[in-house]
């Protein structure tokens, strides 16, 4: 089975070479038969990659330690779920997952791209083939997951204990679906450049892919953030670590792309810029892969710090980013610029959105790479960490957040900013009240906290205002308004939900940053402590034997005002003998949107233990906001015009035409 997997991977590489050349040549010479090769080859390539991936997964699930990769990262006593997810919990396996998802998206384009013009489809598949070929070659030459060991060891070295968590089942696949999903946008952009033709329909074809990738990437980042929060025992949700930034940059650029593609689709403007953004977004995904995989950041987070891999990925990076940008520079001039609009208009607002988002992306990029470049050039060593990013990114993102509610209320072509402001009076009033309440009624509220809460309410209420206005509540009777609300295009709901989600995330961040309470103390069994008005009693430590670990479980009980015992939580310290590694399993109790977070430190004589305890107000909103954003993207994806509105080759009758959007 293992050799079959290896062989399938080699075959998939060979097919990707065919995919790279034949459809492209067909498109150039107008040969339909050659162009038609793209589809079947892409789908077969996906099937072979899937077979290869299954082979590795099987080796993991059977604990076949004759495979070096399995021996290094698995253990026979490991629970089955982690044997399965351990497939991608290492460099080689995660790269295999990467190409699996890449070929999956290629196959989707081949399957659902029947309504695309034949040459565009052929070119898109060819560009996907180039990316695939480069990464197949990378895996086969530098990161082969199928290498055998002779003689086979009896027991494996186990998966890193931190990764033995449900987070590994969800986070990397989601993240890669997002990262790699943007490759489709990239391929469309490069294909358009090759053809030298781009119009509004291009945006309509690309938008669903952008949306889908964005939804997955949002989920991947949110999930990773929550995983870090509960697993690392510090209760931090975002660290501005280079590896985090590597996933955040494509998200920011992808968000900009999502917005500029709307302008292109509806108004045929910003065509060249949208094309550039599509290229940049995937370039940042590739850069992220490079930063993480090559170990160039001398980061302890990279599990591959092999220079040959680094050089290989650097070559891929230069080839694709350099190549596509050169093609862009060559061809962009020949593309026609699109429709006109006044500065104050929906288009204008979306341009402003793009301006802030791309500047924020560039700031994160510069901050991440600056120490590296400075050291290479001058030998000076500096650090750029969270305090820098909080300051600069914060300064850039706050104005954008303030502007968000205006966007959907402005009309296309020429908007009325005063009318929009008037309609937002209620939302503004609500935000002001929230700020006042914060300052007057919450102890220790700073100006920063009040402003942050104000912005969060402004975003949430602004998003709701859009829905209320578009359905005409207050102007027409409630029943008519309700039916209008139900009849609004899905994309309007998508926008409102996504913007509302940002508001929730902001509320969560401000809540936890401004009003968090913390206790660091030594507790003996039976002792109590007070945190944020709650009494918590420590019951003592008890040993427990897990499948492949031992742990000390500390039990904590919340005591109510009457002295009665309430909810309990377990916080533990684990030890994994295979890797001789300890981990902390924080005890978390969710109350409303807030959480009580307890993690254990060193044990002391007489059963006492060092306890680190936090009260984290509204913290869950950070990730719930992410979920709401994802929901918004998903709802928007079901919009009628994306389902049936994509221009088909058949002439449509007038009655079947998609309804124009309500705004």
């Amino acid at each position, binding site marked *: 089975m293992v050799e079959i997997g290896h062989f399938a991977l080699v075959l998939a590489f060979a097919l990707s070479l065919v995919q790279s050349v034949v459809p492209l040549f067909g498109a150039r010479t107008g040969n339909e038969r050659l162009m038609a090769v793209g589809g079947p080859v892409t789908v077969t390539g996906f099937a072979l990659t899937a077979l290869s991936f299954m082979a590795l997964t099987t080796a993991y699930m059977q604990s076949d330690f004759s495979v070096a990769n399995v021996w290094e990262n698995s253990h026979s006593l490991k629970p089955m779920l982690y044997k399965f997810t351990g497939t991608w919990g290492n460099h080689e396996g995660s790269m295999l997952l990467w190409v699996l998802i890449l070929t999956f998206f290629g196959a989707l384009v081949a399957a659902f791209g029947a309504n695309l013009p034949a040459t565009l489809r052929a070119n898109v598949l060819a560009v996907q083939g180039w990316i695939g070929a480069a990464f197949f070659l990378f895996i086969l030459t530098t990161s082969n997951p199928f290498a055998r060991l002779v003689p086979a060891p009896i027991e494996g070295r186990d998966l890193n204990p931190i990764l033995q968590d449900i987070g590994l089942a969800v986070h*990397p696949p989601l993240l890669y679906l997002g990262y790699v999903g943007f490759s489709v946008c990239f391929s469309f952009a490069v294909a358009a450049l090759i053809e030298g033709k781009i119009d509004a329909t291009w945006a309509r074809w690309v938008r669903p892919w952008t949306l889908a990738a964005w939804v997955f990437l949002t989920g991947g980042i949110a999930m990773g953030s929550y995983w870090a929060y509960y697993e*690392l025992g510090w209760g931090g949700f975002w660290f501005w670590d280079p590896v985090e930034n590597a996933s955040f940059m494509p998200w920011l650029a992808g968000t900009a792309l999502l917005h500029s593609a709307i302008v292109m689709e509806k108004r045929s403007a910003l065509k060249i810029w949208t094309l550039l953004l599509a290229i940049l977004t995937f370039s940042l995904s590739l850069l992220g892969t490079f930063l*993480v995989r090559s170990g160039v950041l*001398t980061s302890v987070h990279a599990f591959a710090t092999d220079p040959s891999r680094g050089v290989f990925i650097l070559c891929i990076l230069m080839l694709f980013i350099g190549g596509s940008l050169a093609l862009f520079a060559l061809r962009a001039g020949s593309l026609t610029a699109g429709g006109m609009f006044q500065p104050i208009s929906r288009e204008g607002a979306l341009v402003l959105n793009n301006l802030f988002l791309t500047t924020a992306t560039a700031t994160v990029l510069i901050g991440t790479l600056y120490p590296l470049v400075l050291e290479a050039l001058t030998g000076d060593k500096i650090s750029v*960490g969270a305090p820098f990013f909080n300051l600069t990114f914060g*300064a850039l993102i706050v104005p954008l957040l303030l502007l968000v509610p205006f966007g959907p209320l402005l009309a296309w072509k020429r908007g009325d900013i005063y009318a929009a402001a008037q309609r937002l009076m209620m939302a503004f009033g609500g935000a002001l009240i929230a700020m006042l309440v914060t300052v007057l009624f919450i102890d220790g509220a700073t100006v920063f906290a009040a402003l942050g809460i104000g912005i969060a309410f402004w975003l949430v209420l602004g998003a709701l205002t859009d829905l209320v206005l578009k359905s005409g509540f207050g102007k027409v009777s409630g029943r008519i308004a309700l039916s209008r609300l139900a009849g609004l295009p899905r994309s309007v709901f998508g926008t409102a939900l996504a913007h509302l989600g940002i508001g929730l995330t902001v509320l969560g961040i401000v809540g936890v940053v401004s009003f968090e309470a913390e206790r660091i103390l030594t507790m003996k069994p039976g002792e109590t402590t007070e945190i944020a008005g709650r009494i918590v009693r420590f019951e003592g430590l008890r040993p427990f034997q897990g499948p492949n670990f031992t742990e000390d479980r500390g039990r904590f009980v919340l005591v109510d005002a009457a002295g009665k015992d309430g909810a309990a939580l377990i916080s533990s310290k684990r030890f994994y003998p295979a890797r001789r590694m300890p981990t902390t399993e924080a005890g978390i109790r969710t109350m409303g949107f807030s959480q009580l977070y307890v993690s254990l*430190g*060193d044990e002391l004589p007489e059963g006492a233990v060092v306890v680190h305890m936090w009260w984290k107000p509204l913290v869950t909103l950070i990730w719930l906001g992410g979920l709401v954003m994802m929901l918004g993207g998903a709802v928007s994806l079901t919009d009628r015009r994306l389902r049936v509105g994509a221009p088909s080759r058949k002439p449509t009758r007038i009655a079947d035409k998609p309804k124009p959007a309500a705004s």
Partner: protein
Amino acid sequence: MRKFPGIVAATLAGMLAFGGIAHAVQPDEVLKNPALESRARALSSELRCMVCQNQSIDQSDADLARDLRVLVRERLTKGDSDEQVLDYIVSRYGEFVLLKPRLSLHTLLLWGAPLALLLCGAVAVLYSVRTRRVAEVSALSEQEKQALEAILHDDRKA
């Protein structure tokens, strides 16, 4: 931090080299004076743990980070201002210890970039809006004319 599998792991592996897993700030380090302690925490989150990757001394379990935390608290109890504490630590450990680099010649680009990019972008947007007052209407290609003809023809039939 943990954006990729293994990232988390490696962090911990790194930490282990510096003694067992524990929590950054220990009960015995905490100062009696809450105002001083909160200043100490704020300062700690701006100082890098020199032997870790992108961790502040406030988060790190490394011995060196503990030494620095204790040092920060010693200076604060002696009556140093926040700025004096930072100066003192930079004089001993160099600029590398600061997670938020100071504005100087070699960080000019870093600090200047966000604003410069925003302004450049704004100028570029304004420029392109001004120069594109005249609409460019491109003629239909032969292929498009035929397609249009076909659609119109189809409608007339229906």
